[in-house]
């Protein structure tokens, strides 16, 4: 049996899952979309500008929390209704107190805000508030001020007045804006202004309970002698006002500030940062006391300020309330002294000058003792207290002599102390002096004190000395002290010293000597010094006329520091200016005044001397080498003149004697220079002024000034000196000048035809432009009546002199081809040495005035006629003069002219037998079909005419015989010109 198929039940197809899933997805998406929707709110704006549908967003803290969906005008067209949706998660923004406003670029007090909206588009900002949900808001015109709930530190400042603080004005810390002013109000009692400020959260840690706030509005200018300070806050605070703060240094760590803490708002930084304590000082007069201004200084540093000035009840005294800085606590003790510093100008000095400009101030001298808060000011600065550190000594003087209280005490120019007071006694004045601690150890029992007021002038040829203390000492007097030798014993306080009237007296010792003078002119008491080797070693204290001997006795005080001059053998003499035939002496005294010079002796101690009239010939105590100088001129330097070596004083002339036709000078060369005396050392007169001039320039040579006036002798060795020490040689020639002394050469004889144009000691011998010698002496040889010049030739030129050397006198030569040696017209002729090879040395020559010797090749030319040729006319080769015509004559057959010429030896090699000669010169003109050509040679030949020749290239080697006759052609053949021009 076949079974019947069963009916398959239609199963639920799996495919239906797909739509099911789709449905679920769709529903879920819808739900999601719906739930994401967020809160719709309505904002009412006055102006919808900048608000765009679907675009303008609502932001809080920079995050988008919603979008504007719709912008429409309200029904009555006076406002703009904006519908916006706030995203779901931020829906809590839509509360009652929430504030909305449009952020766009705005110019407000603190600056321009909202600039970012230029790029990002304007947006609506929200400040969330509390309260119930609200969905309809009225937007604000402007961003709201920060409210109490804004993050940060809210503080209250109490000020006397608002000044120019405005809400929005910045709060600055170190010129950075860290907060701002929010609002202000009057205090309850109406006496103070309360300013609310907000410090940004970032900076709240900067403020603590000790912080001080002050108003930095505007610009504050302060000026005093140390400068002008212009202080501002930031620029915005200048315009808008602002508040700054800082915390003064404190030892303990202050507590941080809390919200709503109250602070005092000071007017400026100084007041704010002040810390200190108050003292009261009583003054006689209120002059110079300015509340809030007059400072209290200690050693120039501000340690406090006068806060307030009051007259006391009896109106007799003025009390100043002074605020001293904390660190100046020690200044307010029992023994502290306060006084007013005013500018003072009196003879004791100028002080307190600063105060003229900066105002007076109060100076304090702290003392020891317990702290005290009430003081009475002194009327004048106090003396150093007896217990002030340093040395307190007494000086005894005859009179106070321009010293006064406060006069300074110097040592070696440094202010080391001060005169404190005076006491008059029977014998004189006791001056109490305080030496500063720093210098106390410079005062020894041996120290000398003297009155250093005014200034002293001393001068001599070496200069003028102006000795003064500082200005004060000139005006107000001063005391100086010094210690001669090392300080053995230090002085103690209470020591007594003598005050000398001047330095010299202070260091005067018992060294007093008496010197008798015949002539006391120029010697003055108290002025004329005693000099030893140029240094002042004493002074005349007294001059008396001695009736008995008709002379003058001078009492001289020799200084402590001077060597012991009071010995037997010492020579004293007065130095006065002396001008006599033997020279000028003692010139320095013209300026400095006469003085007494002393040469030390070596004998026993003596105290009474007789002065010499004139200086001894030489220092008796000088040692050195004695030499003789032989001079043959009349003008010799005189006794006492110095001898120099390379500018140094190396010796002295002791004596001069005339013997026959020479002068013998005895001289002494000092020991330390005698080593420089060599066998070839030369002595020469120096000094005075040596003047030489020629066309090359003028040279003036002098030694030092003294030698100009006194004259002198110098010595030196020649450059190539053997430097052999002199043994026993003592005689030297004294030359007229250095050149002559250093001359290195020999004499030759030069015979002259005449002496014209030749000068003794002047006319030079020149070789190739260099002067190699000089005419020294021109004499007439009695035997043959010729003039002989002794000529000096320098050694190096010796080799030039041989039998072929010739000397030619050269002077200016005028010719058609120019003027030769024009300078010689002024400088004078010179003699030229023409050198030729030779063998033997010769020392006698004859001066040639003519042209150089006509050594050369003699040639004879034959011509039809002489033409313009004459003796001296040139012979040219390649337009260079190589010879000249000597003469001419008719030949034997009288049909030709023979012209004699010489080719200079230098060029004689050019000539060969096949040289061709022709006339040249004049102007040759050729007229031909090609035109007129004018030919000429040099100017000379145009006018002079001449002969020219050419030589063929391949000339013969045959030498030209002496009497070879050349043909003289009228004009050159082309071929010959080619020899010249075609090469």
């Amino acid at each position, binding site marked *: 049996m076949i079974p019947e198929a069963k009916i398959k039940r*239609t199963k639920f*197809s799996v495919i239906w899952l*797909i739509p099911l899933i*789709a*449905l679920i997805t*769709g529903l879920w*998406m819808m739900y999601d979309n719906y739930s994401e929707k967020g809160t719709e709110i309505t904002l009412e704006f006055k102006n919808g500008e900048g608000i765009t549908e679907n*675009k303008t967003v609502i932001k809080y803290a920079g995050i988008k929390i919603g979008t504007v969906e719709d912008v429409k005008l309200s029904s009555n067209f006076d406002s703009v209704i904006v519908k916006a949706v706030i995203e779901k998660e931020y829906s809590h923004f839509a509360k009652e107190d929430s504030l909305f406003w449009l952020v766009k670029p705005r110019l407000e007090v603190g600056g321009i805000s909202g600039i970012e909206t230029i*790029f990002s*588009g304007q947006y609506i900002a929200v400040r969330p508030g509390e309260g119930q949900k609200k969905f309809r808001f009225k937007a604000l015109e402007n961003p709201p001020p920060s409210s109490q709930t804004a993050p940060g530190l809210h503080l209250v400042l109490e000020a006397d007045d608002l000044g120019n603080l405005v809400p929005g004005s910045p709060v600055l810390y170190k010129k950075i804006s860290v907060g701002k002013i929010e609002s202000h109000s009057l205090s309850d009692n109406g006496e103070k202004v309360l300013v609310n400020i907000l410090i940004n959260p970032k900076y709240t840690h900067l403020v603590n309970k000790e912080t001080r706030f002050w108003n930095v509005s505007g610009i504050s200018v302060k000026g005093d002698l140390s400068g002008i300070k212009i202080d501002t806050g930031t620029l915005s605070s200048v315009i808008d006002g602002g508040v700054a703060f800082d915390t003064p240094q404190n030892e303990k760590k202050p507590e941080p500030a809390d919200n709503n803490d109250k602070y005092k708002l000071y007017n400026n930084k100084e007041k704010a940062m002040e810390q200190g304590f108050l003292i009261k000082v009583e003054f006689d007069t209120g002059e110079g006391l300015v509340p809030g201004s007059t400072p209290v200084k200690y050693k120039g540093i501000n340690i406090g300020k006068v806060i307030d000035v009051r007259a006391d009840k009896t109106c007799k005294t003025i009390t100043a309330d002074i605020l001293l800085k904390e660190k100046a606590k020690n200044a307010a003790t029992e023994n502290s002294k306060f006084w007013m510093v005013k500018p003072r100008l009196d003879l004791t000095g100028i002080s307190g000058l600063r105060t003229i400009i900066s105002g007076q101030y109060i100076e304090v001298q702290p003392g020891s003792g317990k702290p005290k808060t009430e003081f009475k000011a002194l009327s004048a600065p106090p003396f150093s207290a007896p217990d002030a550190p340093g040395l307190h000594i007494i000086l005894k003087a005859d009179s106070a002599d321009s010293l006064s209280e406060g006069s300074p005490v110097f040592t070696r120019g440094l202010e080391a102390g001060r005169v404190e007071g005076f006491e008059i006694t029977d014998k004189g004045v006791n001056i109490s002096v305080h030496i500063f601690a720093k210098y106390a150890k410079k005062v020894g029992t041996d120290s000398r004190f003297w009155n250093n007021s005014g200034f002293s002038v001393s001068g001599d040829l070496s200069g003028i000395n102006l000795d003064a203390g500082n200005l004060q000492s000139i005006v107000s007097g001063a005391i100086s002290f010094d210690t001669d030798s090392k300080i053995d014993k230090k002085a103690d306080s209470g020591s007594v010293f003598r005050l000398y009237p001047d330095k010299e007296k202070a260091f005067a010792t018992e060294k007093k000597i008496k010197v008798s003078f015949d002539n006391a002119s120029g010697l003055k008491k108290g002025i004329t010094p005693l000099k030893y080797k140029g240094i002042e070693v004493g002074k005349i204290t007294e001059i008396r006329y001695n009736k008995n001997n008709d002379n003058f006795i001078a009492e001289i005080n020799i200084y402590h520091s001077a060597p012991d001059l009071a010995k037997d053998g010492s020579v004293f003499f007065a130095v006065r200016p002396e001008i006599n035939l033997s020279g000028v002496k003692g010139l320095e005294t013209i300026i400095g005044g006469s003085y007494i010079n002393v040469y030390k002796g070596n004998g026993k101690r003596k105290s009474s001397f007789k002065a010499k009239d004139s200086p001894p010939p030489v220092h008796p105590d000088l040692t050195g080498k004695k030499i003789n100088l032989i001079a043959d001129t009349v003008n010799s330097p005189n006794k006492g003149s110095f001898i120099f070596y390379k500018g140094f004083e190396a010796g002295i002339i002791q004596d001069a004697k005339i013997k026959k036709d020479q002068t013998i000078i005895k001289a002494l060369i000092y020991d330390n220079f005698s080593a420089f005396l060599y066998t070839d050392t030369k002595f020469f007169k120096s000094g005075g002024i040596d003047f030489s001039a020629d066309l090359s320039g003028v040279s003036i040579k002098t030694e030092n000034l003294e030698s100009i006036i006194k004259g002198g002798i110098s010595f030196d060795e020649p450059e190539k000196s053997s430097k052999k020490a002199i043994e026993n040689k003592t005689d030297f020639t004294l030359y007229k000048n250095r050149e002559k002394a250093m001359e290195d050469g020999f004499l030759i004889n030069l015979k002259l035809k005449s002496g014209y144009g030749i000068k003794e000691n002047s006319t030079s011998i020149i070789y190739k432009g260099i002067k190699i010698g000089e005419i020294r002496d021109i004499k007439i040889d009695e035997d043959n009546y010729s003039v002989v010049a002794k000529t000096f030739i320098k050694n190096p030129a010796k080799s030039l002199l041989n039998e072929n050397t010739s000397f030619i006198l050269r002077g200016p030569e005028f010719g058609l081809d120019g003027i030769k040696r024009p300078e010689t017209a002024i400088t004078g002729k010179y003699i030229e040495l023409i050198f030729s090879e030779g063998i033997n040395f010769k020392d006698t020559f004859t001066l040639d005035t003519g042209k150089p010797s006509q050594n050369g090749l003699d040639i004879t030319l034959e011509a039809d006629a002489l033409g313009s040729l004459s003796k001296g006319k040139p012979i040219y080769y390649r337009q260079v003069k190589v010879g000249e015509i000597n003469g001419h004559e008719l030949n034997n057959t009288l049909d030709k002219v023979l012209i004699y010429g010489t080719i200079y030896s230098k060029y004689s090699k050019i000539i060969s037998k096949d040289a061709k000669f022709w006339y040249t010169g004049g102007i040759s003109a050729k007229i031909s079909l090609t035109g007129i050509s004018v030919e000429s040679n040099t100017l000379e030949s145009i006018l002079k005419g001449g002969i020219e020749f050419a030589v063929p290239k391949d000339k013969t080697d045959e030498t030209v015989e002496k009497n070879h006759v050349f043909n003289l052609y009228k004009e050159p053949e082309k071929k010959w010109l080619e020899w010249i021009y075609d090469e």
Partner: protein
Amino acid sequence: MKTSNPEGAENKLAVCTVCGKINKIINLPADKNLKCARCSNKIFFRKKESITKTLAFLAAALIFYIPANIQPIMFTNNFGDQSSQTIITGVISLLNADLWLLAAIVFTASVAVPLAKILVLIILLVSVHFKWDYFYVQRTKMFLIVDIIGKWSMLDVFLISLMTGAVKLGTIAEVTPGPALRSFTAVVILTMAAAATFDTRLIWDNKNDT
């Protein structure tokens, strides 16, 4: 749903949908899968449960069609100017920008075509279910058009993806795809699936011709 009598069932002939070979099916069991004698691909008289499947897909596509049009398909950010576009608003803004052709293209590809596909398939399903005896040729043609154009509806998706990838200029201009894109893609896939499961031969099953 019962399938109408396949034509070839009487004669026991089936056409392979892959290679087109006519196979004989005589004594083979009906509930087992049969394969073509020539190409070895599955061979059947009519697609199994074609109408059911097609209907299911269509329903899903319809469901997704709603959010595809409501939700924004693209967010643009032009200098901070953020805006979102749905397909329709996109077309409108293209029209406003005078880009008629582009608007027409987008409209066609993103709106008209999916809609047309769904509608056509619904009509076809209805016609087969209610055994319409008319418009045979038209109905076939309709399906053909739907099938061919169907692929092109992915155009919009491509457009968005390309724009998103290309326009990444930071604040100046930026394009971000929106949620509608998911839905739209779902619509396209589902309609394609629906078209694939619909056996067009069912249209003709009702026709009586010899």
